[in-house]
């Protein structure tokens, strides 16, 4: 290993020099930032997508970028509601993919999207337990009584679906925690904190051997639909439309189904 370079002893910078440096930075930073974006000749597409698409969408983008040289796709993954809040706050995005239709409607109502939303994927609920199933859970039934069950809160899409499915199956759930996103449900089960959780089939697929998956009766009657639309005021409207078209194309569908999504 080479010896570290020897620095001469530096005097602490004086206050004036620091202030001067700060002033220089304050004056040059905006120039530097705008310089960056204006130098870029190719288009950068910003896609706001629901957190559950974190793994599938970058794979789809790889194929899209290959088909559209010069276009780079960047993602911001978050809860669908957070993304709508960010769009309403003026966030610069070109495409919005929501995990449910209710949230997409909120975006439509606020005139945040430019195109009519298209459903590109579906998801259904499953029951998961830790691999060794310490609570001896057999399904969405009395085996859950007295066990530590974690579900999504009814205010969020997965929780709303959970409630509907439980009603359909005539089961009253007594969860120990109602989380705001499905990732927390998966986390509670994979850490062994919870005996069981209700998540989307794609989450169970992503968790792999960390969970045991049990199907829930009538889950095909409570289907979660993922809509996608271009964002109003996008500076890359044409590219945004091609991305939406690519997601709904055969190539996009193939990737989505490999991650456990259903295709509408």
């Amino acid at each position, binding site marked *: 290993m080479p010896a570290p370079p020897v620095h001469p002893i530096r005097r602490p910078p004086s206050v004036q020099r620091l202030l001067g440096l700060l002033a220089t930075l304050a004056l040059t930073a905006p120039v530097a930032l705008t310089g960056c974006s204006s130098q870029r000749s190719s288009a950068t597409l910003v896609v706001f997508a629901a957190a559950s698409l974190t793994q599938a969408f970058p794979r789809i983008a790889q194929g899209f970028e290959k088909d559209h040289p010069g276009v780079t796709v960047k993602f911001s993954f978050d*809860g669908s*509601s*957070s993304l709508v*809040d960010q769009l*309403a706050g003026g966030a610069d995005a070109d495409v919005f993919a929501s995990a449910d239709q209710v949230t997409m409607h909120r975006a439509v109502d606020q005139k945040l999207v430019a195109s009519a939303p298209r459903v590109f994927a579906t998801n259904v609920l499953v029951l998961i337990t830790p691999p060794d199933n310490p609570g001896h859970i057999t399904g969405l039934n009395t085996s859950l009584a007295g066990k*530590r069950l*974690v579900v999504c*809160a009814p*205010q*969020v899409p997965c929780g709303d679906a959970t409630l509907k499915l439980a009603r359909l199956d005539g089961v009253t759930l007594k*969860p*120990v*925690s*109602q*989380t*705001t996103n499905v990732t*927390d449900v998966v*986390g*509670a089960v994979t*850490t*062994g*904190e*919870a005996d069981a959780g209700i998540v989307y089939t794609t989450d169970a697929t992503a968790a792999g051997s960390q969970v045991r998956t049990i199907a829930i009766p009538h889950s095909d009657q409570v289907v979660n639909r993922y809509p996608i639309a271009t964002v109003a005021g996008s500076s890359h409207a044409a590219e945004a439309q091609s991305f939406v078209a690519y997601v709904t194309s055969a190539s996009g569908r193939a990737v989505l189904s490999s991650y456990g999504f259903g295709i509408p």
Partner: protein
Amino acid sequence: MSLAPDTAVPRWLLVPASAALALVAVPLIGLMVRVPWAQIPRLLATPAAQDALWLSLRTCAASTVLSLTLGLPLAVVLSRLTGHWAVMVRTISVLPMVLPPVVAGLVLLITLGRRGVLGQYLSVWGVDIGFTTAAVVIAQTFVSMPYLVITVEGALRSTDRALEVVAATLGARPTTVLRRVTLPLVGPAILGGTTVAFARALGEFGATLTFAGSLQGTTRTLPLQIYLQRETDTNQALALSVVLIALASVLMVAPTLVTRRSR
């Protein structure tokens, strides 16, 4: 607004000082403008909001008592340590201040959780901390106690040790010196540190969510309720935020008034 006459503040200092105040105040003013004030009474009347409010007050009171009973002794011992030990103990004591809250929650989970390093033994004895109100208190104490420790320790280090030495030479036992000399000297710092710890516990979110989960009346404190509310209606979340801010403001101002009166 007026400056105390005996403090000669350079005029130019007012410029960055005003900018600093604006940085914090402008978003608050923005909130006040946006908030649907008419919705607040109706929102506060909902069981979900009331449960969250009471749970927050209860757990914060408990975690503040815990911070005080454990943190105060730690601050005293820490202020007496020197050299490497002081650096090491202080670093450990304040580490939760720099940890992202989610990390704090995860750390607690893998330690005290059902399959955690310690939790697995507790679980054998039938003690399950996860998803209980106790977990909320532990998470709040974990993140808020350092504020009390660092405040009190700083004050203790800047007190005049001669007073304690005199008390000791006059025959006072260590406990008497601590009770009659040391602690009264840093009384305002203890009050200030306790207030900050309480306020930090009141705003605690990430560690609670990760370690304790979120269930109405059991673990869903006010910040968690706000977060959940935001999923359906941002305006309602803002309205509830005003309640949290008002509560925190009252709690921050109260000790200042108390100390001013005692002077």
